[in-house]
């Protein structure tokens, strides 16, 4: 039975139970004098019946699918290769793939033990088939029985609506819990690998080491670099690029937000604000391309005029483009903060004889400062975590420099370059990517939470 057939059967069965339960509740209602005497509307009985069928069936299906292969393999191995119990994992895996490949294609990979292998493969296939049949039967039966029992016991007193509502509520709760699970997932998925990494490389060396050169020898006979995992150059590189970005985005973003909120006519505002916000919707890979296509050559030519040597892949080019990307974050968050300030404060200042700019500088900005700081922190967090622009435009040289004209590398770039291509999961090189990921996550988490705290505290002040 393929996936679609099973799906359709499950759906049909659910609707069937819905219909049956609904009908039965209507019958009962008739007997006792009308629907009004039922605790809940008939369709709630239907919903509960359908849910009682589908939920157990799906849970069992999920559980089954995730464990059955393992169990079958273990059964086959213990049956035919009892002597292999103590063999190492690689050998077992090899045996299993031999069995599976024979079962699927009828191809024998090795000549030794051919008979046993064939028998094992037959057994394997048999078990797989059996398991599938058993699985399908059991989920259908299980769901059907539970649902059927419910249908049997439908009475005017059963509070179907309450049950249905708690099922819905449970689903809603589960959906909101996704956020927590995602965070846990992120932490777990980087934590284990990071711990493995820190067993090889001391945390101190990682956090405070001044040299980054993770290309340790990947084979014994290959002489590579010595494998230094000092992440300081990465963080300085990240901060350098983010710094350049912020020095573009903060003045432009802040000033344009102020202009649009305080000076611009409605007409200008209604055109310029969405036009600037387009920048937030442009994918970062496009910015990366823009950086190498337009900005880097432009900066380079400009540098030549000034007698500066700007590397094609410079922190400057990446930073400037990233700054352009961040402008709308700064400006729209600032705009929100500024426009949320009560108009009365502005009027008070103007009525004292302040000019508009004095009002802005002396009253509006100081009052909005916490909110603006919060939004700038969010923008910094965005800059630190940005990947594609730096990947395409900043380069790979892990250099400890504060000169934005040179090429630097960032945490995100290293994560990508360490992981893309080589998926082997035990060398310190790939593990380093997870350690970097963990650091990045923690750093942005701190920034975000601080920013959110500030913003929330601030917005409470004016509510």
């Amino acid at each position: 039975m393929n996936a679609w057939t099973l799906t359709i059967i499950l759906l049909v069965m659910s609707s069937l139970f819905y219909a049956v339960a609904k009908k039965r509740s209507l019958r009962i209602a008739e007997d006792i004098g009308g629907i009004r005497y039922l605790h809940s509307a008939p369709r709630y009985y239907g919903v509960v019946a359908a849910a009682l069928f589908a939920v157990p069936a799906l849970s069992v299906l999920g559980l089954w699918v995730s464990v059955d292969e393992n169990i079958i393999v273990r059964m086959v191995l213990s049956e035919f290769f009892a002597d292999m119990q103590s063999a190492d994992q690689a050998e077992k895996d090899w045996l299993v793939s031999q069995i599976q490949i024979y079962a699927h294609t009828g191809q024998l990979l090795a000549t030794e033990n051919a008979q046993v292998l064939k028998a094992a493969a037959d057994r394997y296939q048999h078990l797989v088939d059996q398991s599938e049949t058993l699985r399908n039967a059991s989920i259908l039966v299980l769901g059907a029985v539970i649902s059927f029992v419910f249908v049997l016991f439908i009475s005017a007193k059963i509070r179907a609506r309450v049950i249905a509502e708690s099922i819905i509520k449970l689903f809603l709760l589960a959906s909101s819990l996704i956020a927590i699970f995602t965070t846990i997932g992120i932490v777990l998925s980087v934590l284990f690998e990071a711990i493995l990494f820190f067993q090889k490389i001391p945390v101190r060396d990682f956090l405070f080491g001044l040299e980054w050169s993770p290309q340790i020898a990947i084979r014994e006979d290959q002489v590579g670099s010595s494998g230094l995992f000092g992440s300081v150059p990465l963080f300085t590189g990240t901060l350098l690029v983010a710094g350049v970005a912020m020095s573009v985005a903060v003045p432009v973003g802040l000033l344009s937000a102020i202009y649009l909120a305080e000076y611009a006519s409605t007409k200008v505002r209604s055109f310029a604000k969405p036009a600037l916000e387009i920048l937030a919707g442009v994918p970062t890979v496009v910015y990366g391309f823009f950086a190498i296509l337009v900005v880097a050559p432009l900066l380079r030519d400009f540098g030549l005029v000034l007698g500066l040597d700007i590397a094609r892949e410079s922190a400057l080019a990446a930073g400037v483009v990233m700054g352009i990307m961040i402008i709308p974050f700064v400006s729209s968050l600032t705009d929100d903060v500024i426009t949320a300030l009560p108009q009365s404060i502005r009027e008070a200042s103007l009525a004292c004889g302040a000019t508009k700019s004095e009002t802005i500088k002396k009253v509006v900005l100081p009052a909005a400062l916490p909110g603006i700081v919060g939004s700038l922190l969010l923008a910094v967090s965005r800059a630190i975590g940005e990947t594609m622009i730096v990947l395409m435009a900043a380069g790979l040289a892990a250099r400890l420099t504060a000169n934005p004209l040179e090429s630097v590398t960032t945490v995100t770039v290293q994560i990508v370059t360490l992981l893309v291509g080589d998926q082997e999961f035990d060398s310190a090189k790939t593990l380093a990517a997870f350690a970097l990921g963990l650091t990045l996550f923690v750093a942005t988490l701190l920034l975000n939470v601080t920013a959110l705290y500030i913003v929330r505290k601030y917005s409470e002040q004016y509510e």
Partner: protein
Amino acid sequence: MSSVQIQQSKAVWESPQFKKRLKKRNAAELRFKYYGLGAVILGLIFVLSLFVSIAVNGFSSFWQTQAQIDIYFDPDTLNADDLAGANYGKLVKQAMYKQFPDVTKRNEKRELSRIISIGASFILQRMVINDPSLIGTTQTLWFPVDDEFDMLYKHDIGRNVESGAPSRLSINQIIWFDQMVDRGSIESRFNKTFFTAGDSREPELAGLRGALTGSFLMILVTLLISFPVGAAGACYLEEFAPRNKLTDLIEININNLAAVPSVVFGLLGLAVFINFFGLPRSVPLVGGLVLSLMTIPTIIIAGRAALRAIPPSIREGALALGASKTQTVMQEVVPLAMPGFLTGTIIGLAQALGETAPLLMIGMVAFIVDIPSGPLDPSTALPVQIFLWADSPERAFLEKTSGVILILLSLLITMNVVAVYLRRKFERRW
């Protein structure tokens, strides 16, 4: 007294010092205003230069230079037993040699035959297999030219042979090509291939359909997962959740997740979906799952705002009629908040459509020619295709890259316009 006081007061305001200060203050005011205006204009210049540079570079990718040649379907070359494996390139070469009978040297012949894209032989192969009766006939056909010549025709790139700068094109090739142009057998035509083909190593044969389909499948998966979950999460948090530590934790998590670097989500996808659950690499399903996790916080935040905008009177009205809390929410509140949910979803999906970094982590960067037919076929996505082509050495890929960007941007803009339209259409002031 009053007149004296008036005099005094006037004296302050009309003193030259005050007037001078006033002038200064007004100048500062004007300056500040112009700084702001300058910032806005600078921002708009950024927007404009981004779009213009991409459009200028990318527009020509929608056209492809094609050459007209007469192909003789030589029965000697086309063995009826093995039509698929025949040497179709030879037909094209022969046709070209016929056009330039003077070319006899082996080396020159090779150069000559390179004018036409190797895609020509694929086209012939398809034609012959579909209609074997063509064998023995002569047909006048249009074929794409090689990307170098495409660049030559469109942008005059590579012509500077005489100036001594090296080029990949030989003088002979340029002369022959110019002769073909003079004969009228070279034309710039709409580049259908760009929209119907998958990736290719030959720029003139490369298309974005594979990436487009990949993106579509991925966004479909994202939509199907993130919309219900996001909407449900928003409902719970806004309508049902008690104010306690757990809710606070969820809120902090959601707000934080919306700002977590996307590359970290890539790490999550790699560790959880590929390594733990054993899903295959490079497939849209995994991409969609990762993007869902990124989109859900956006939808929840937008959904909560939509729910918050619905006045309590609606809920009170329903509750007063005896509806349960769940009924009220499901039947009265959610339908009213639906435009907000949809807007949030579309904006979230638009973000997801442009994401690249997490896809790099889960292996969606391979060379894939075939168009994926389902969420479990390996594929790339539009942004990844941009990344791949941006790194390609062939100059013709530069305009292809800009071309894909144009398509991607127009998709994103369409989605955002739809979102804005929905918001305007269904927006209600309570």
